[in-house]
């Protein structure tokens, strides 16, 4: 049974992700954002469900499609938005962009542009906690595409072997870029790979935030109790293409997209909260408006922020002096 | 051994010759030195002689044929000798054309554009160049000891040392070769050979100048510019005929006195002093002399003269008047016996007609002569005669 406060928090986070992503898409299509944006609209339940099971001092690493994960872990949308704009006030001073946002204070060890690269890294974080003797856990998000990389296999093997306090969360949105799952792996349920590496593999409905939350919470308990890592698969769907601007019509049928959109995770949760009488509509609407304003302000903040100065390109290559 | 007979190179500029007459028939006997063939080149006929006694085995060119230098025209072999004609021809082609006979008096090797240095880009290391620039050392002429014979820092420093011994800063080193070397050798030879005496005579050139001015338009009409030098050539030629011991040469233990006058004109060129010779000036008119001398001087300056232009001089005139020199003692152009140095033509105040003061054109004639051959009296006589002509309008007129 989840307390109301937590439920509201979870709802707020989901809305925040949804509105942030929608805004990012809108801005990108207007042409004001440099680079790429990989939207996670449709996957809010996985991000929020999983991160809600973590403490602030637990660690998380994400992917190129990481906005949702990062917001779910508590990141500030104004700093995120500024980073998307490439401004000096962004999370990474404009040096990383959409795919590389990090907030070490919140335990967000960044996102990576290389598919699967975060998985070996999360082991290191977990290892450090183990060495230090704390009960902190580390969670790694990755997609179905990443489950085929060498990094995935090496890392899961090592985590299982060393009994690392890790939760591996696979956001299986059924497509690796433009390739459907059935065309990139023989198996249907990635969760079965857990057994290969000596850890439980759990399959969940990734659009039900409570289901995800439950599964991750159990895995977190295990990890804190030093019972080792868990692989959790969350079946979900991304509403937009691989990147914003990819219509995805060449590789996904319109009907399929429509089907999944009917199972909108934010809408589902909202309905659930009302049905279970956890709160009133008014409260939800308040949250909606609050988050809307937040996003507006974040955009304004980002747009009014200064660009990085050219000299800054040479900063932070190393700790210490730049090596020419 | 079978020998190929080829068209010889008879002068530096000769390129081809025409076969005029075969003096022998194919298969006929020849003696060594006997003329086998007459060829013509540049209006000169030349007799080709057999190099050995034997048979004129093969004639390879017809009368009237025009052939380049080096072309084989016949083969001479010993009686009964067997040979392969193709081999002979091939061997002959490999032999270079015989060097033209160098006139013994002029040991200068003149090529159309002067002595040629082998054009090579100076290879020097960046460090060497920097030091050379700093120390103002010319890289030219430095021997390189670096990789690929490039000039290194050490080479530059060594050159600097050598060139700056004491307080002399050598800015350039000119190798003594070609014309420069030849001039140096000739000067030494002349200096050591002839005991030289100089006589200077001041000549009133007013009449000569007037004479030239009067006839200028006439001459221009004939397409000719007559310079004072040309007048001098004519006058000297005349004087030399009258005082022939000046027009002579010491040859071993006899003195050759020449009947014709060939005047050498000293010309200053970029490559050094060159003295082309105007032949038989005693027989030429003033206009002819003027025409020929101008052509000769131009060709000399353009570097287009050959050894033939330097031959047979009997007397040399050298004029430094244009450089403002009043008087000087040139070195005799061996094997001649005398040389005339001409000084500056200048306006001076003179006493004429007894005690009148007038402004006249005046010029020094400086005769340097070989006292083995010429006595002071002859020299003085020669100069007097020259002066007489130059100062007398009637005698000048006769020069035309």
């Amino acid at each position, binding site marked *: 049974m989840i307390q109301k406060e937590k439920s509201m928090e979870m709802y707020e986070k989901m809305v925040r992700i949804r509105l942030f992503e929608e805004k990012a898409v809108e801005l990108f299509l207007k042409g004001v954002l440099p680079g790429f944006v990989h939207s996670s609209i449709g996957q809010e339940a996985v991000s929020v469900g999983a991160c809600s099971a973590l403490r602030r001092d637990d660690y998380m690493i994400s992917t190129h499609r990481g906005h949702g994960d990062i917001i779910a872990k508590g990141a500030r949308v104004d700093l995120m938005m500024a980073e998307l704009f490439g401004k000096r006030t962004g999370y990474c001073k404009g040096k990383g962009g959409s795919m590389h946002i990090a907030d070490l204070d919140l335990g967000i060890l960044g996102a990576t542009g290389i598919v699967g690269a975060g998985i070996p890294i999360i082991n290191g974080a977990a290892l450090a906690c183990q060495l230090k003797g704390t009960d902190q856990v580390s969670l790694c998000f990755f997609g179905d595409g990443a489950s085929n990389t060498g990094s995935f296999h090496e890392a899961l093997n090592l985590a299982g072997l060393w009994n690392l306090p890790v939760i591996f969360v696979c956001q299986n949105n059924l497509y690796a870029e433009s390739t459907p799952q059935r065309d990139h792996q023989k198996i249907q349920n990635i969760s079965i790979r857990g057994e290969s590496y000596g850890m439980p593999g759990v399959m969940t409905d990734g659009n039900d935030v409570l289901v995800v939350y439950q599964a991750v919470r159990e895995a977190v308990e295990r990890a804190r109790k030093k019972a080792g890592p868990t692989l959790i698969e969350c079946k979900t769907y991304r509403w937009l293409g691989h990147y914003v601007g990819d219509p995805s019509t060449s590789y996904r049928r319109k009907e399929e997209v429509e089907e999944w959109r009917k199972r909108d995770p934010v809408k589902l949760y909202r309905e659930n909260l009302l049905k279970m009488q956890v709160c009133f509509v008014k409260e939800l609407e308040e949250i909606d408006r609050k988050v809307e304003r937040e996003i507006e302000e974040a955009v304004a903040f980002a747009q009014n922020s200064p660009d990085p100065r050219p000299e800054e390109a040479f900063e932070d290559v190393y700790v210490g002096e730049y090596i020419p | 051994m079978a020998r190929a007979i080829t068209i010889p190179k008879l002068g530096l500029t000769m390129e081809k010759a025409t076969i005029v007459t075969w003096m022998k028939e194919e298969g006929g006997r020849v003696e060594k030195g006997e003329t086998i063939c007459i060829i013509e080149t540049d209006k000169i006929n030349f007799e080709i002689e057999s190099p050995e006694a034997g048979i004129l085995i093969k004639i390879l060119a017809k009368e009237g044929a025009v052939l380049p230098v080096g072309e084989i025209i016949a083969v001479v072999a010993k009686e009964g000798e067997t040979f392969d004609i193709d081999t002979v021809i091939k061997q002959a082609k490999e032999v270079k054309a015989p060097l033209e006979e160098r006139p013994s008096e002029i040991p200068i090797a003149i090529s159309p554009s002067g002595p040629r240095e082998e054009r090579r880009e100076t290879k020097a290391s960046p460090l060497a160049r*920097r030091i050379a620039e700093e120390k103002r050392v010319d890289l030219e002429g430095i021997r390189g000891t670096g*990789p690929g014979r490039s000039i290194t*820092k050490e080479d530059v420093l060594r050159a600097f040392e050598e060139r700056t011994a004491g307080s002399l800063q050598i800015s350039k080193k000119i190798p003594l070769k070609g014309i420069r070397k030849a001039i140096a050798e000739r000067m030494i030879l002349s200096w050591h050979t002839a005991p030289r005496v100089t006589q200077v005579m001041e000549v009133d050139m007013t009449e000569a100048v007037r004479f030239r001015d009067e006839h200028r338009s006439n001459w221009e009409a004939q397409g000719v510019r007559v310079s004072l030098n040309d007048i001098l050539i004519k006058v000297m030629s005349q004087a030399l005929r009258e005082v022939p011991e000046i027009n002579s040469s010491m040859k071993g233990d006899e003195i050759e006195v020449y009947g014709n006058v060939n005047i050498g004109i000293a010309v200053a060129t970029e490559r050094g002093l060159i003295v082309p010779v105007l032949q038989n000036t005693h027989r030429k008119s003033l206009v002819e002399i003027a025409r020929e001398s101008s052509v000769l001087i131009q060709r000399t300056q353009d570097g287009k003269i050959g050894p033939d232009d330097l031959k047979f001089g009997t007397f040399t005139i050298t004029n430094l008047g244009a450089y403002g020199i009043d008087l000087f003692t040139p070195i005799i152009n061996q094997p001649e016996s005398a040389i005339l140095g001409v000084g500056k033509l200048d306006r001076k105040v003179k006493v004429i007609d007894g005690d009148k003061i007038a402004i006249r054109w005046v010029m020094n004639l400086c005769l340097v002569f070989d006292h083995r051959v010429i006595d002071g009296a002859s020299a003085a006589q020669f100069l007097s005669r020259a002066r007489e002509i130059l100062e007398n309008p009637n005698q000048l007129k006769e020069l035309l």
Partner: protein
Amino acid sequence: MRKITYRAALREGLREEMQKDECVFLLGEDIAEFGGTYKVTQGLLEEFGQARVRNTPISEAAIAGAALGAALLGMRPVAEIMYIDFSTIAMDQIVNQIAKVRYMFGGKAKASLVIRTQGGAGRSSAAHHAQSLEAWYTHIPGLKVVMPCTPYDVKGLIKSSIRDDNPIIFIEHKLLYNEEGPVPEEEYVIPIGKADIKREGKDVTIVATSRMVMRALRAAESLSEDGIEAEVVDPRTLVPLDEETILQSIKKTGRLLIIHEAYRRCGFGAEIAALASEKAFYDLDAPIKRIGAANTPVPFAPQLENFVIPDEREIIKGVRELLG
């Protein structure tokens, strides 16, 4: 002064740092009971325990990633990649993640780790076990590359490398482990980025790395008999490179010969040659000479291997060519 082997000196350095700082731990293949393929870590398991001297599966990507993750949390891992030839499997983690996290995250993170590896030929270990691949890593901004060749240097530099907050690729040479040299009893550290003039001379500057330093020194002895005095400069660190020492030496001698065991083409020698041409052009009295291994994979048969790897004779010949 006592003389100990390169291996022993290296081990001492590791031990001293592990004693000093709990955050320092080792991971790699066969480093625990076995003591490492080249016995560098022998005895350390007994002293520091399994937690800090960890055997890993054969998973170079996982090893490098784990090192990064731990470093992000403030640990100081020293990961061993058994042969530099195997580092290819960890390339993504090294080049894209380890080298770049600090920069991408706007200076928030630091990858304070050392990757120890070794390379080099001379034992007929053939194409996959004999390469010198340092040039790859010198190319990547964000990494430092260290290549010590004497017992004194290796101990001083492993200590400073571990203490450095930046990621360091520490490249040893398999044929140097048994070489003995003087090493003080007292503690000392060699700063990263400082070259060492191993032999002074006035006629030619020889810049050499790793085992080629030894060959250069022997060549110098031989040349000395003919009155040619070679100055042998060991950069010790390739990134950051001690340009000053090299340039000063060239100014003194006017001639530069570079020798490394890496393939000649695009080896680090090319960088040094370019540097000399840019900054010491007017000090050069002869063209710059580069000697490297032949541009072939390293062959197996000893005669062939000796043929392709540069030796003293080549160095001597090269020097003589420069002297004209």
